[in-house]
């Protein structure tokens, strides 16, 4: 799995039409895509195929026509533009900018690891940034690193970031990042060209080899201040520094963060510093993330990946203080997935949140999840919490099927009515059976203890199978055998009997052990 910004932005992350670009990137109607693209279409996009959604979106570079100083340059064809975008404001692109664009697409400068689409996006970003800032004429376009270099620099940086966690975020001032419009997310504030001051070296390092440069090297090359801090921190983590010095905690911001990150996927990292907007995804993006994750979950069933992604989503929601039906949906889906995979720690975190969110009056599948909550506390034998759940339920809720079922399970167990318990087990709504599976084993032991003490001299094995809802006699027998009950089974003229009278305390020990061992990680 790729994690870094080196990934192409997935489809759908394109800025919407209302995005400020469109206003500033008006241009003389010169056709763009075909001429740009054709000569290069043979160049393999390497491992970064441009996502399809990119295609139809017009990139609006400066007019190509006046730039044909280089006959080899592929910009000759001047077919009329196919762009539908109306030119709102006419911008006279300075010669230097045009040269810069041209230089970017020179064959000798192309890099197979950077796709066209990425380059175009970067170009657009760089130029419109300069335009927005009014730097268009002051920037030294001659010295400006080419887009492919910037992209690679960012990739290296993202890799470094990834390794040293998100600490780097500290050194980026959140205020300036608001101006940032790019889909790029590895950086907060720095304008695109700052990313690769060490052009030549970078080019040597990267052009020579498609593989990512080792992180350390990348760090030493890009000698920016924050990189050095980053390195320092990393050393500290490795145990290189024994110093007890701590970074001063920056003062907490006034309100919730408003994210600007446009990337769908994000690896989860525990926050130890205030979040930085550039690595936080706004709700609009998170909604797409959720759809993506749902698809991926269906297709790949990779729990560790999904769990990690959901955690980072939850984090983004929290730091932005987004509490609405979408939030509920995220937690609900994560809770269900965690349930399915038996990850009770994660499940519990979700349900705690859900409880609070429902309490605020946000709609969701509250009945379903309140029922799970009851079953969960039965499993963890948390009487205090069970009592609290009971206190929170309204009379109407108690009549809802799922909740009623869970309450019946609870009371059946409280009264030792295993008969009813196993009937209920067989008829559990929603995903409650995943939870009940967790404690059905110990309840079987408890029931066996009961049966062994109460019935003399024996019962048919079939009786055990039916009362304790085993799939088959064989399963029931196996369960008994698992606890060294081999002497208790006797074949009597074709009927297997379970010699309860001889069992004595056989199941008592395991029962006690099973009930004492309810230790869940994440349980408060």
């Amino acid at each position: 799995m790729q994690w870094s910004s080196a990934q192409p932005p997935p489809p759908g992350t394109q800025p919407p039409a209302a995005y400020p670009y469109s206003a500033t990137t008006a241009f003389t109607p010169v056709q763009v895509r075909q001429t740009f693209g054709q000569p290069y279409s043979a160049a393999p996009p390497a491992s970064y195929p441009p996502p399809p959604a990119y295609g139809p979106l017009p990139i609006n570079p400066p007019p190509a026509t006046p730039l044909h100083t280089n006959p080899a340059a592929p910009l000759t064809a001047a077919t009329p533009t196919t762009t539908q975008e109306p030119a709102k404001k006419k911008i006279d692109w300075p010669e230097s900018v045009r040269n810069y664009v041209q230089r970017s697409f020179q064959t000798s400068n192309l890099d197979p690891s950077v796709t066209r689409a990425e380059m175009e996006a970067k170009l657009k970003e760089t130029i419109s940034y300069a335009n927005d800032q009014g730097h268009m004429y002051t920037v030294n376009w001659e010295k400006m690193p080419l887009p492919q270099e910037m992209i690679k620099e960012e990739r290296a940086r993202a890799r470094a970031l990834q390794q040293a966690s998100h600490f780097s975020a500290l050194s980026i001032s959140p205020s300036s990042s608001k101006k940032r419009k790019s889909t790029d997310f590895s950086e907060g504030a720095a304008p695109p060209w700052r990313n690769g001051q060490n052009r030549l070296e970078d080019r040597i390092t990267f052009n020579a080899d498609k593989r990512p440069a080792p992180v350390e090297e990348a760090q030493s090359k890009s000698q920016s201040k924050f990189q050095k801090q980053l390195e320092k921190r990393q050393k500290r983590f490795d145990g290189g520094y024994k110093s007890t010095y701590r970074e001063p905690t920056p003062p907490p911001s006034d309100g919730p963060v408003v994210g600007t990150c446009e990337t769908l996927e994000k690896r989860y990292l525990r926050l130890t510093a205030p979040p930085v907007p550039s690595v936080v995804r706004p709700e609009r993006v998170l909604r797409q993330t959720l759809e993506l994750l749902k698809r991926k979950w269906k297709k790949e069933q990779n729990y560790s990946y999904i769990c990690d992604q959901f955690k980072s989503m939850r984090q983004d929601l929290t730091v932005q203080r987004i509490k609405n039906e979408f939030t509920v949906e995220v937690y609900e889906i994560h809770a269900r997935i965690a349930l399915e995979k038996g990850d009770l720690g994660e499940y519990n975190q979700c349900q705690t949140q859900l409880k609070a969110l429902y309490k605020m009056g946000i709609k969701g599948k509250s009945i379903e999840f309140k029922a799970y909550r009851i079953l969960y506390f039965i499993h963890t034998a948390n009487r205090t919490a069970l009592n609290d759940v009971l206190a929170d339920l309204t009379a109407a809720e108690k009549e809802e099927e799922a909740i009623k079922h869970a309450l019946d399970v609870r009371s059946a167990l409280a009264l030792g009515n295993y008969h009813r318990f196993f009937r209920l087990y067989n008829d559990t709504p929603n995903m409650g059976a995943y939870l009940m599976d967790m404690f059905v084993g110990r309840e079987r032991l408890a029931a066996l203890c009961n049966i062994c003490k109460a019935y003399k001299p024996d019962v048919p094995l079939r009786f055990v199978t039916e009362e304790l809802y085993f799939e088959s006699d064989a399963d029931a027998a196996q369960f008994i055998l698992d606890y060294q009950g081999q002497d208790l089974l006797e074949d009597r003229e074709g009927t297997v009997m379970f010699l309860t009278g001889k069992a004595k305390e056989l199941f008592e020990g395991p029962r006690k052990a099973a009930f004492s061992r309810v230790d869940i990680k994440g349980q408060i």
Partner: protein
Amino acid sequence: MDSLIRTFSNAQSSRDGYQLAQTLSPDLPQQQLQAIWKSCGHHDAQNVIKRGIQNSTSGFEKLPKDEVQGWSDVYLAYWKAIGELLPALNQAPQSSWTKVYDAWKELLSALYRGYIGQGFEAWSIPCLYVVAKNLRFFALKADEERNNNVAAGDTSGQIFQDDFDPESEQNQKLEDCARQLNRIFTLCLNDRAPLEESRKWGIYYIINLLFKTYFKLNSASLSKNILKTLSAYRGDMPPLSAFPKSQQVTFKYYEGVLCFLEENYFQAEEHLTQAWSLCHKDAMKNKELILTYLVPCHLLTTHTLPSQKLLEPYPRLQKLFLPLSNCIKKGELHAFDLALQQGEDEFVKRRIYLTLERGRDIALRNLLRKVFIAGGFEESKVEGGPRVRRTRIPVAEFAAAISLGSKQMLETDEIECLMANMIYKNLMKGYIARERGFVVLSKSGAFPGTGV
């Protein structure tokens, strides 16, 4: 301020902690608070107070310099807190209980510093009681006030969290208060001075406050840590019985309730019984609280019900327990279910629902016992020998009784299951012979403890 300092001086010379503590109470008539607040201004408060403290004692009893400074800080903090408290009491526009809380916390800190580094003596610990008690009070006020103004979103503490923590948002100040109390707890616990002049004498008062706070915060389980720490230090601690009775009762009550919540009914009963017997005879409210848990305990440990006489002085407890008791006594399953359902909200609120629910076993036992008795006697095998109760009873008879009693038809398997439970829990002695459809009960004491 002058009268305050006079009291201070008296208390210092007589070493009367409770008198001294009075000077730090916020619980005064408003005029008095006004007077204290107006007796000095921002510019001179520090000097006025310091001079006052300095001159309050003389001769032999002159306070050491450190201590003078310490008490001056304490009273300055007190004076400032009054300055916040007065507008809050009058609901003045700029006032808030949060400010009162913060100012009062300063006062507690000043005291804390006094004990740590400025030589405050242990006899003055009642000051800690008064200040700590009121800190809790102000915390509750502040949380309540903030929760009423939902719009005010003070979220600064939350920023590093992956998920929301709604509980702690609601109880921000009370949680902070618990932390402060914990500091004081350690302050008392770790005093190494000889017992006669040790702050250890303050420990149970603070523990009780902590328990109270933890229960309010819905994290009673944290109290366990306190108990653990306490038992680790038990060796160098004065015995509980040497502390004021009020503190003993409260402590025992909480200890009992904690055991109760963990289903250690035998231990719970022990603690609660101690609290009950130490409790002042006229402290009706406290006795009622103790009984709220002691009665369910008793039901489970000894299978006995409270007598009419015991509950007589407590109409609320009567309402709580009598309907259930009657059903249990008569073995009326259906009525029991109804009574439990009717009282559910009240039971849940007091956290006794899950315990009382188990009373159904006793009701069932009583019903089965009736069946047994109704079975009558068998012909004695020996001519003229003692009559013997019929001990082989068809399951069908029990089934009829249970189905009638609970007003629903149950399958035979479920009936057997209920009987198996009775046998397993030693409420009934005997065994089920499934093949023949009989229950065979013990000839001697089929229902232990009930005379048959």
